[in-house]
């Protein structure tokens, strides 16, 4: 079923009117209520009246993750604190997390787009959703939850981890839809097989997988091992969380909810909009958000956009391709966004000196592993084993607290890590994504 038939199948020229009205409103709103945008528009000689339709959007300046960081924590809010009902946080590029927030209406919007997503994926009354995305500050867990509540489809808030219990409830509750990261689904399948039961024999029929990039090969593997339909969901907390776009049964692109999240594809170097169908950086403007409306937010994700009507489900909402890469050095490890610069900040804070380090990322038994190799130079050396062990533990603990990621730390000799001319090759990603 289509959750919101009028919007999801609306002819695009009609949708354009709605988008144009909304753009005019949001531009006026941010100019008046967000000092960052007032400065940005003034600096770029933009008069709010110049924006008459959605076609004028390219006149507006971009917003970057660093702008959110510079305005940490609440500088980007367009409404007073009394109207903020929920606050989440995700990775920042350095020390501080990126703060995102919701008014009551924003939460309703989130529930709506997630409801659309669940329906696009084939969810329907009678299904039982097992939500293994993490609940907490991570927007994955609660996003799916709100969407399920909106549709009235039964939801089990398992959150991530506790794999044996996941498998037990899957069987005992006869859950039909699993929502989690694609790598975790493979991990669960392996655990199941190791414990003597066949994932193919569960009542699962659909998986809605996201929070990390995954290939067609991985999809085939998941579908084969579970005997389900595995579909991609796209989102980012700066825009709303999960629920920005959802792949339908056609498995040929993710329908983006462009009535609320207007997409553009730009050349990341020049900033110019690319021709239809070509790859580039996805830029999103939130047309209706209240707490943190964002104008032309650069997501850093490389995709292409397809405006043709979908043969498989009939929706007219444009489709973005699966994410093909990043414009920056951000990594996704176990569904968590990691910037190497965050690791650098941690190491710098420990001894006030920047050691040479390397990140080795691998995937074993479907779970991402991350090892940090740190060169022990004079600043970091101590004659006592226990002090070096303590240093290792400290690095581990600090990184865990900044990234919520458990890493292995190895101390290595100076000059043992490769040096390169120009930008240091800090990350060795052995995963075959």
């Amino acid at each position: 079923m289509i959750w919101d038939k009028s919007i999801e199948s609306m002819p695009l020229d009609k949708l354009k009117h709605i988008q144009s009205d909304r753009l005019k409103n949001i531009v006026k709103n941010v100019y008046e209520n967000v000092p960052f945008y007032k400065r940005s528009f003034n600096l770029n000689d933009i008069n709010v009246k110049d924006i008459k339709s959605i076609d004028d959007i390219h006149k507006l300046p971009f917003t970057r993750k660093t702008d959110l960081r510079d305005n940490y924590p609440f500088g980007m809010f367009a409404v007073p604190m009394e109207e903020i009902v929920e606050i989440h946080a995700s990775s920042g590029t350095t020390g501080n997390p990126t703060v995102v927030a919701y008014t009551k209406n924003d939460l309703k919007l989130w529930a709506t787009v997630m409801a659309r997503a669940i329906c696009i994926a084939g969810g329907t009354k009678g299904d039982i959703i097992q939500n293994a995305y993490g609940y907490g500050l991570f927007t994955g867990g609660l996003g799916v939850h709100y969407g399920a509540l909106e549709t009235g489809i039964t939801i089990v808030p398992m959150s991530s981890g506790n794999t044996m219990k996941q498998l037990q409830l899957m069987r005992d509750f006869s859950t039909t839809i699993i929502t989690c990261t694609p790598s975790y689904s493979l991990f669960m399948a392996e655990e199941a097989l190791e414990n003597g039961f066949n994932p193919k024999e569960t009542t699962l029929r659909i998986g809605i997988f996201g929070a990390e990039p995954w290939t067609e090969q991985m999809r085939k593997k998941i579908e084969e091992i579970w005997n389900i339909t595995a579909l991609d969901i796209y989102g980012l907390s700066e825009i709303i969380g999960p629920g920005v776009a959802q792949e339908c049964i056609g498995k040929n692109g993710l329908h983006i909810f462009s009535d609320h999240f207007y997409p553009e594809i730009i050349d990341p170097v020049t900033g110019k909009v690319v021709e239809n169908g070509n790859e580039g950086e996805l830029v999103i403007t939130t047309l209706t958000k209240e707490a943190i409306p964002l104008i032309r937010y650069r997501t850093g994700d490389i995709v292409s956009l397809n405006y043709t009507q979908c043969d498989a489900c009939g929706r007219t909402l444009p489709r973005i391709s699966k994410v093909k890469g990043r414009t920056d050095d951000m990594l996704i490890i176990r569904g968590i966004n990691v910037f190497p610069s965050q690791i650098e900040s941690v190491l710098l804070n420990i001894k006030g000196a920047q050691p040479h380090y390397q990140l080795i990322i691998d995937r074993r038994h479907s779970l991402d592993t991350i090892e940090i190799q740190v060169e022990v130079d004079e600043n970091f050396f101590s004659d006592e084993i226990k002090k070096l062990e303590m240093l290792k533990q400290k690095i581990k603990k600090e990184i865990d607290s900044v990234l919520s990621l458990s890493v292995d730390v190895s101390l290595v000799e100076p000059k043992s890590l490769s040096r390169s001319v120009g930008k240091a090759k800090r990350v060795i990603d052995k995963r075959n994504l």
Partner: protein
Amino acid sequence: MKVKQLSIFLENKVGRLLETTEVLAGQNINIRAMSIAETSDFGIVRLIVENVDNACKLLKMHDFTVEITEVIAVEVDDRPGQLARVLRTLQDNNLNIEYCYAFVERNQDKAVIILRMENIDKSIDTLVNNEIKVLTQEELFK
């Protein structure tokens, strides 16, 4: 009354210790005593050599991470009970040992115990007051 010891960080990999010793041998630096503390991925090699400062510079030139640590060298007769006597004295005075190792002297019936102490100055005073011979850097290499 403090003696200088070389502390070198090595990864627990084949060839590392060999390279360290070859570098020292190349400049005719003789090792009097050695102790290695290891973990699964790295180790600390502790050496007593005569020209500590030169050895330190030499190893640094070869990109080793090395540090000079101050330790105590205690001389005792090389017979049963002597090590216990030293340890008893330290324990009775609540002095904490970080690590220790020992070697015998060449021409006499003496043994040398190298001690890294939590509180080096208090330890030296205590040992001297208990008539335990604490060697100077020069006496160690006479």
